[in-house]
Each structure stands twice: as C-alpha cells, then as structure tokens.
C-alpha cells in the first residue's frame, strides 16, 4: 500500500502539497511514483512561471510513458528542484522529500484547504485501483 503522510494535502491527479503561509511545496505521491515506475526524466517550469490550479506545469517520464503533472493551486513558481535533472530517481526514492518538484507562491492559500486529506486520498486510490 502506498504511503500518504497525514500532514500533506492531495489531488486526484496524484500530486501532494505541503502548505505553509502562502508557500506550497509540490510533488507527486508515492502511489503515483509506484504506478509510473522508474522515473528517467522530469520537465519542470521556470522560476516566475504562473499557473492556474489544475493546469499542467510539467511532466514526469518513466521508461514506458510520459505523465503530465498538474498544479494543485494557483500561483507562481518560486523554486524548482534542479537536482532532479541529474537524479530523477529521487522521485521514486523519496517522493515526499528529496523528490519534491517545485515551490509555489499561492495567490489564494485557502485553495489548499479544498484539496483531499490523506484519508480521502487513500479512499480515492483504493477506488481507482479497484480494491
């Protein structure tokens, strides 16, 4: 079973965010990295790029597929995890830690409260996996 820390918020597209004030760190979930398999390439936006919630902001590629990643909240990118260029496998090894993707400055921090809790996300992936 996938790991879903309780202090994070989740999306149905399998991203997580860790919100603090108006800043949010964004990554993909343990369940998502397991579904993808070994990540071989990550395409991320530049600092300063602005995205609406649910807009695709990059992609994560495994050997067999490309998966788009979607913004959990509206905001501008203030930091990008450049180490993923050389070590994309960090997404598999530590999806909630070293495998983070970007930090966003949220325009409306209340959006984060509308995302799934860890319990809700667990129910969602159980249903998706047909368990």
């Amino acid at each position, binding site marked *: 079973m996938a790991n879903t820390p309780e202090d994070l918020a989740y999306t149905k597209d399998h991203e997580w965010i860790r919100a603090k004030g108006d800043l949010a760190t964004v990554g993909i979930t343990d369940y998502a990295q397991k579904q993808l*398999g*070994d990540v*071989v*390439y990550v*395409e991320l936006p530049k600092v300063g790029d602005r995205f609406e919630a649910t807009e695709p902001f990059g992609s994560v*590629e*495994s*050997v*067999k597929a*490309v998966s788009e990643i979607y913004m959990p909240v509206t905001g501008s990118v203030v930091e990008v995890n450049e180490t993923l260029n050389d070590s994309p496998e960090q997404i598999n090894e530590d999806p909630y830690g070293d495998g983070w993707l970007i930090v966003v400055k949220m325009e409306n921090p209340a959006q984060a409260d509308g995302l799934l809790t860890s319990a809700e996300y667990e129910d969602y992936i159980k249903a998706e996996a047909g368990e």
Partner: protein
Amino acid sequence: MLKRTALFEAHLALGGRMIDFAGWEMPVQFSGPTQEHLAVREAAGLFDVSHMGEIEVQGPGAIDLLQRVTTNDVAKLHDNQVQYSILTNQDGGILDDLLVYRINHEYYLLVVNAANTIKDFNWIKQQAGSFSAEVHDTSAGHILLALQGPRAEQILQGLTDHMLDRIPYYWSQRVSVDGCESRISRTGYTGEDGFEIFCSPSDARHLWNRLLVVGHPHGLVPCGLAARNTLRLEASLRLWGNDMDETTTPIEAGLGWAVKLAKRDFIGRDVIERQKREGPGRKLAGFVVEDRAPARDGYPIVVDGLEVGTVSSGSPAPFLKKNIGMAYLASRYAAAGTSIQIMVRGRPVPARIAEMPFYKRGKRFD
C-alpha cells in the same frame, strides 16, 4: 470483451499489471520494465505471447500460395526451418510481418501479429482461390511462450532431453518439455538468444510455472509487454503499426533483405522492385537523442525549421542507457551521422541518425 490467454490467472497471481493490447488483456509489467529488460539482457525472461496469431497453410499448393503472398523465398526452407517474411498488398504496403515455419513441404505454420490475425487470415484465404491449399486460423489452439536471454538454453535444457544446442538460430523442433508436447524454435523479439515455445492451452499453466521455478536460480523473471517493446527497440526490430504498416513498403522500412525479387511473382512485387531500383523517397532510420528528454512515438522531426519526418518508436533504452528511437525521414536526412531535431512538447531537442541495430549481442557460439 477483451480476450484472455490461458495464463491470465497466473499473471494476476504474479502481480502482473494488465492492459488492453490488440484486444487482449495482457501483462504490461510484473516487477517493472527496467528490471525485466535488464534480466533478459543479463540472465533470462519469460513472456506470454499467446496473443500472437497462428495460421496454418496445408496442401500440395501451400508453397505456391505462400510464394505469392509473402516477400521472402519459401522454397529455401527445409523441414523445421523458420523464416522472417512480410505480407504485402498490391501497392507493396506491409499488411503484416510474420514468421513462416516449414513443418513439411505441404504444411506451414505462420505466426502473425495479434492485431492482424483475422485480417491476415482473410487475406491469405482470399488469395488461396486457385491454389490447392487449405488455410486455417489455429490461434485458439496455441499457447506461445518466449523464453529469452543468455541463460534461456540452460534453463530450457533442464526440462527436456532434446539437445538444444543442436537447434540453430531460426530452426524449430518438436520436443517434449517437462512431459508437454511442444514445438520450440530458436527465435525471439528481444535481440537475445532464446526460444519460443508452442504448447497446448491445457499445458500452459504447468509449463509457465515449471519454467519460472527451474529458471529462478538462473535469474529468470516473468516479463510484460513494456520490456518486450524496449528490448525489441534496442535490437532495432520493427513493430507493425509503429515502424511499418500498409502505407509503408519493405524497402522504406529497411526490410529489403526479406524481399527476394529473384523468386516468382508475388503481390506488390512491381512497386517494390521499382522502389528498390529508384530508391525510396523516405526511409526508416534509427536515432539517438543528445538530450535527457526521451523521444516518443509520434513526435515530429525537424531539420532547419522544416518538418522532415516523425518518430515511429521512441523510448529510453534501459540497457544502453540512452534515449533512442526509429523514425521515417525523407531519405536525404536518413544517413547515419545526420543531425536532426526532435520536437519534444514544442521544444527542439538535438538528435543524430545512428546505425542500426543499436544493440547487438556478442557472438557466443562461434
């Protein structure tokens, strides 16, 4: 409703992730594409490829019918020999690629792509009119396993008394494998040594499990379609539907070696002969991406701002650890060493045309 092979339950029991492939519910992966791919290069892998179609052609006119519908020279085959060949239409387009097994001079087994089985069967039957030959789709009666990798022979030898080292590349033999009547051939779609094993559906589960048990100490793992795809791409083996189809000819696809113009007339011969003489306007070429971004099926290819082709198969290559692919390109851009750009989600990424095959196994028998 998707079709299932006799091994469907066995795949679920091993944690296989199932997908729809050409109307079949097949395992795309077990432990993971990369691990499975590397196991086949370094030890061995076992694939269920029962979705492949089998068509039997029998009768005094079987050879003449096959000479008419396929591009290779069936007359060159001896009993138990196997040949790679192509079914072409009147325009020289590729209906399918296939293996032709000669059982005896009046009995041939064709192994065709799952997506094309019914089309191929109808096509061959339609051409059979004036020939004294019967054509049967026997796919339902066949299970096909592929045991591939440098340890494949050693593993299979543990389950049969037949001396496997006497079966050369592209030859087959009827043998008993752990008590199951089978036909095995030294063939495959991975670029490795290995065998393909035909058996009856009632023996499938027994053989599958026995092979995995006997092979386990040798590093054998069950493999899915994802690894099969990256293995064949590294070995530059074409995939019908990606790297060739009814709109491409064997010459364009770089399969001229499987076309024998010297034999009697065959369907599509005129077009193919002219193209071989004049040179095709476009060609399938291999490329290596000079960037971390993988090229994927369908990405456009650009030279000097001009679109000159499309990626037909592209992927990270787990053993070679490069991003590789094949593409149809205007012939003037298809020479090895040519610099091209691949459009990856709107970003031009540098790549270079490379000699194929990308991967060739070391010779082990000479």
